[in-house]
């Protein structure tokens, strides 16, 4: 079999979503290209977080969510009945708005995914140590934390916590990383650190980031999706969206006339 690289990291087709009676997404169609950072922007309540949370189906934690249409990740329909959410979420990692490391040690946070997904017999001490070291290296935490791997992760500084939340995705070798306003709880230095990390990671992952902060979208993303009232208004290269928006609503938003 020849491995054909999938044309799109994520593709949504005619996606509609209701929370009870409220329709949060309206006929969303979207292609997210791999190895790029795509930003979802728009005013509060426009459905950008909802859309993000469709990609790993974590929306379904709340009852009364109804979805129609299709979402494909790496060419596979994630809403197909035979899809295992456990496997889907192994491939599609997520970073949340508030850093949410688990109240266990730094070490156990990083290997959490392995412990959940791999057979116990394969997880020798050496395998786990190696996973922790390489994941923490990758997010730039190793030198800071190598002597305090056993401290409780919830006692770290916020930006360290957020980096740790990214690091714990890496041992699972995901294809997609979803980020839901990952810097909104951080100060400027923390924000810069996370953004620099995103540049490093984008060579290997498809990254989708939801952000409230338009300058952040402009700094970090390659492509930008502008959403309004549950619809995708415009999706194009970031500089184009900010400099020569095609839609009047986009233009008004990026110029700050509403939001």
């Amino acid at each position, binding site marked *: 079999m020849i491995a054909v690289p999938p044309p799109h990291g994520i593709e949504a087709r005619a996606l509609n979503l209701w929370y009870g009676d409220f329709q949060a997404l309206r006929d969303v169609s979207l292609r997210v290209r791999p190895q790029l950072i795509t930003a979802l922007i728009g005013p509060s309540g426009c459905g950008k977080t909802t859309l993000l949370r469709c990609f*790993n189906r*974590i929306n379904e*934690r709340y009852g009364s969510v109804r979805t129609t249409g299709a979402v494909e990740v790496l060419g596979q329909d994630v809403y197909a009945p035979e899809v295992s*959410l*456990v*496997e*889907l*979420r*192994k491939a599609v*990692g*997520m970073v*949340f708005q*508030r850093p*949410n*490391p*688990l*109240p*266990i040690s730094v070490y156990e946070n990083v290997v*959490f*995914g392995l*412990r*959940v*997904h791999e057979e116990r017999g394969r997880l020798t001490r050496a395998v786990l140590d190696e996973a922790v070291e390489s994941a923490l290296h990758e997010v730039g935490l190793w030198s800071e934390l190598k002597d305090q791997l056993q401290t409780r992760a919830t006692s770290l500084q916020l930006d360290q916590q957020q980096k740790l*939340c990214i690091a*714990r*995705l890496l041992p*699972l070798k995901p294809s997609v990383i979803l980020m839901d306003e990952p810097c909104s709880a951080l100060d400027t230095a923390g924000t810069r650190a996370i953004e620099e990390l995103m540049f490093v990671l984008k060579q290997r992952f498809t990254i989708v980031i939801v952000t409230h902060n338009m300058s952040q979208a402009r700094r970090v993303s390659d492509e930008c999706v502008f959403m309004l009232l549950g619809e995708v208004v415009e999706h194009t290269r970031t500089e184009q969206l900010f400099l020569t928006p095609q839609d009047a609503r986009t233009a008004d938003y990026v110029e700050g006339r509403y939001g």
Partner: protein
Amino acid sequence: MNAPLPRPIVFRRPWYSVALERAIEALIMVCGISAVILVGGIFFFVFREAFPILASPNFGLGEFLFSIEWYPTSVRDVRYGVLAMIVGTLAVTTLAMAIAVPFGIGGAIYLSEFCTPKLRETLKVVIELLAAIPSVVWGFIGLTVVNDLLITLFDAAVGLNVLNAALLLALMSLPIIVSIGEDALKAVPDSYREAGVALGATRWQMVYRVLLPAARNGLLAAVLLGVGRAVGETMAVLMATGHAVQIPTGLLEPVRTLTANIASEMGEVSQGSEHYRVLFTIGVLLFGITFLVNLAADLAVRGRRR
């Protein structure tokens, strides 16, 4: 016409309003420290009744704690040894916890994580009902239902024994463990659950790897409150243990607990007598045991937090 002059703004409040505020603060402080005063007071009065026994020639602390000979009404040779009752209390409590903790924590996990909201409400009402059954009624159940059951199932000579009392105590402490445990699990921030789910944990993995570590202290508190309930329970164990002063060699042996001993003999002693004071000394001992349980809990909770 001149407009009325605006009233000058004064940075003062009337004296009664200030006084009321002070009074409320004082009242709240009294409420806050009342627990300390009460515990101190109770300890003082129990101890005062017990203390004179130390001077008695018939009483030795070593004999009290380490002898199984309990003959408080003997005319020739009174002996006050409560070791058998200490062992009885520990045996009944330990067995009760061995039954109640797995069920209680399991029930708490089911209520908080697995069942539908509608079912949860129903179950909680029923569990609260379980907590509302008076202990003497549990005693009746021990005397009749559990008694017959143990005789039929295990061919026991008497159905009133360690196992009977432990079953009752397990059922009595179950509601406490379930409801406090459920509160502890509910108090785990949802962001932890979300983190676990987003990393692909199954429901059970999330309970085991996320919730149990996160709610550990609260669950420990639930268990220890259950232990406290079991150690202190009197009426049901009085009716269900068989009330024989002996060190049990098996689960189907009758025993006597410290609490049941006090309750059954207190009505027959003359106030101020030696026997009376020994019963109060047993009260001090019970106090000591529960104090140690609470201290252990506190240390465990602190130690783990570090």
